[in-house]
C-alpha cells in the first residue's frame, strides 16, 4: 500500500483493544460536549433555514456551521405568477418536461379575449425550473416556498389565482434569471400556401405579427384563381418571443421554424 495516492492511514495492525475502543469513544465524547452547547439541529417549525439569520453563515458556539449562507438565492420551490404581465404565450406549458402545466382561462382586461394563464399541478411538477427559464416576460418565477402537504390530491393543483397569491405574498424569489439566449431562429413563411386568414396575427401573444398586403397574382392558365385574402403575415423579430403559437394555429401549416443554420 505505497506509491502515489495510496491511503496509508489506518493500516496499523497493532493490538491494543483498550486504546482502540477508547479512541472512538473519545471522539464521540468530544462531539457530545460540543453538542451540549448547541446541536446542529434546526428546530424546524420554529426555526427555518430561510430565516435571515441562517442566510449568512451561522457560527454557533461550538464553531460548527449550520448552512453555508446564501443557500436560497436560487432555490426552486413553488411558482409565483404575475397574472398582470402574463402574455399567454404557452411557452411554460411547452417547456414543461412533465406536462404538468395547463393553460386555463382567467378573466382578463378584455372580456372578449380571455387570457390564458398557467395552472400547475404540483403532484406532477418536478421543479426543474424550465418553465421559468422559458418565460419571456419573467412573470413566472420560482419562490422559496416548499411546504405543500395536503390531505387532498386536488388541492395540489394550483390555479393561476393561487399562483398569483403566492406572487403577492412577496416570498423571496429566485433572483438568478437566465437572459434569453441569442435568437437565431425565426418564423418563416411558405408564401404559396398562405391564405391570409389572419389567425396568426390574431392569436399572437405579443402582437408582433402584422398582416401586409400582397399583390394579387394572376392564376396560371388552366388553374382556378386562388381563394384567399391577399394579405401575408410579417413577423417583427425583435418583439417575437418564439412561442410558436402562430405555427400551431395556422390552418394551412404554412409557417415554420427557420433561420440561419
Amino acid at each position, binding site marked *: *500500500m505505497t506509491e502515489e495516492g495510496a491511503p496509508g492511514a489506518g493500516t496499523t495492525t497493532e493490538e491494543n483493544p483498550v486504546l482502540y475502543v477508547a479512541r472512538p469513544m473519545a471522539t464521540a465524547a468530544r462531539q457530545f460536549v460540543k453538542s451540549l452547547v448547541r446541536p446542529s439541529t434546526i428546530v424546524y417549525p420554529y426555526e427555518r433555514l430561510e430565516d435571515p439569520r441562517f442566510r449568512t453563515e451561522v457560527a454557533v458556539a461550538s464553531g460548527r456551521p449550520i448552512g453555508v449562507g446564501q443557500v436560497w438565492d436560487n432555490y426552486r420551490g413553488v411558482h409565483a405568477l404575475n397574472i398582470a404581465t402574463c402574455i399567454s404565450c404557452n411557452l411554460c406549458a411547452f417547456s414543461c*418536461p412533465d406536462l404538468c402545466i395547463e393553460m386555463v382561462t382567467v378573466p382578463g382586461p378584455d372580456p372578449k379575449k380571455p387570457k390564458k394563464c398557467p395552472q400547475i399541478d404540483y403532484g406532477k411538477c418536478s421543479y426543474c425550473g424550465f418553465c421559468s427559464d422559458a418565460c419571456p416576460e419573467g412573470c413566472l418565477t*420560482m419562490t422559496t416556498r416548499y411546504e405543500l402537504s395536503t390531505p387532498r390530491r386536488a388541492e395540489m393543483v394550483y390555479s393561476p389565482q393561487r399562483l398569483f397569491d403566492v406572487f403577492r405574498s412577496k416570498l423571496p424569489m429566485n433572483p438568478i434569471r437566465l437572459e434569453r439566449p441569442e435568437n437565431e431562429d425565426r418564423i418563416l413563411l411558405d408564401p404559396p400556401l398562405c391564405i391570409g386568414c389572419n389567425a396568426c396575427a390574431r392569436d399572437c401573444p405579443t402582437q408582433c405579427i402584422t398582416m401586409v398586403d400582397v399583390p394579387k397574382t394572376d392564376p396560371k392558365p388552366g388553374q382556378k384563381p386562388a381563394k384567399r385574402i391577399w394579405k401575408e403575415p410579417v413577423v417583427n423579430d425583435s418583439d417575437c418571443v418564439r412561442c410558436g403559437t402562430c405555427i400551431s394555429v395556422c390552418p394551412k401549416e404554412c409557417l415554420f421554424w427557420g433561420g440561419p*443554420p
Partner: protein
Amino acid sequence: MSEMWINMGPQHPMTHGLWNLRVRIEGELIRDVDPEMGYLHRGIEKISEDRHYNEVITLMDRCCYVAGLAWEHLYIRAAEQALHVDPPERAEYLRVLCDEFQRLGSHLMWYAAFVQDLGLMSPFLYGMRDRDLVLDLFQSYTGARMTYEYMRVGGVRNDLPPGFTASARKVLDWLSDRFREYDQLCLGSTIFRKRCDGLGVLKGPDAVHHGVTGPMLRSAGVKRDLRKDRPYAVYGQLDFDVAFADGADVTARYLVRMEEMRQSVRLLRQVLDWLDRHPGPVIAEHLPRWLGAPYAPIGLEGYLLKRNYPKGVGFSAVEEPHGEALAYVVNEGGEHPYRVKFRSPVFANLSAARTYLVGYHVADIPPIMGSVDVCVGEVDR
C-alpha cells in the same frame, strides 16, 4: 440446521434501496446469493426517447439520486458529442466542480449508510450532517438539494453566485477536519477492524473479469480511474492522485473512498482557484435555439430534419462516485434522441455479488453490501 433461502428485501434495512438479495444460508454461513433487481425500474431509457435533449436531464438527476450531477455530466457529454456542440472552458470547470462535490456528497452518504450497517449509530448522523453542507453548496448555485437540472447541452445553466467560492472553501476546510474524525470512529476502533478486515474479498483479476469498477476495483489494486486514464473535461489539467489499496476487502474499500474524498478536496481547491481567476461564458454561443434553453415550442417536430442537422452518435465515459459510467446517445436527426443507453457501475458491481458474498456469515452481508455502495436508481434505471 439445514439450508434455507431467505429474502433480504425489498423491505430490509440492509438494502438501502429497493432490491432483493436472496440468500441461501446454512446456519449463519452464506452458500449462495441471487440479487433480484428491477423493483425500481422506471424505464428512464424509454422515457428519454420521448423527450427533448435537455429534458432528459431531469431524468438523469433521478436516475442516480445520490450522484445526480455526475449523471447529468455523463449524459450531457454524450449528447454534446451526438449533437456536435462544444462547451466553453469555464463550463467544463464548473462541471468538474459539480462532479467532485458530487463525489464528496455521494461518499459521505455512503459513509453514513455503511457505518449504520455496522451498527455504528453516531457516525451516520455525522455523515448526513456533513453531506448537508455539500448539498447547501449545490443549492446555492443549482437551486435544489438533490435534483439539480443544472447542466445544459452546450454548457451549464448559470454561473456561480457571488461569494460561492469563499463558502465552498470553508466547507472544504470543515470536511478535511472531519475525515480525521471519521477515521478515528472507524479505523480507530478495534471492533471495526475485526469486522471488516478480510471481508468480502474480491481480488483484482476476478474484479476485472466481472466488470467491477470504481472504488471496488481500485481497492483490489487495479489503478483504473477514467479521470486519469482517459481524461475527460479538464481533468487532464488538474493535479490529483488515484486512490487505491491492495486489501480487496471491506477495509480497503473504506480506505479508498476516504482517500478519494481527500483527493476530491484537493481537486476542488484547484478548480475553485481557476474559477476565481477566469470569468467567462458558461454556455456555448450560437446554439440552435432549442438547445440553448429548454424550450419545446410548437412546430419543432421535423425541425432538425428540415434544417439538415447532422446526425451523430455520442459516447461518454465518466468516473462516477460508484465507478465507471457510460452513456451512448444516438441522434437520428429528430428532436428526441433515438436511443439512450447507460451503463451503471453498480449494475456490474452487483452482478458479481456471488463472488464476494459466498462463504461469509449472514452478519457480514450488511458491511459487504454497504462497501459496494448500492444505488438502486441507477441499476434499475
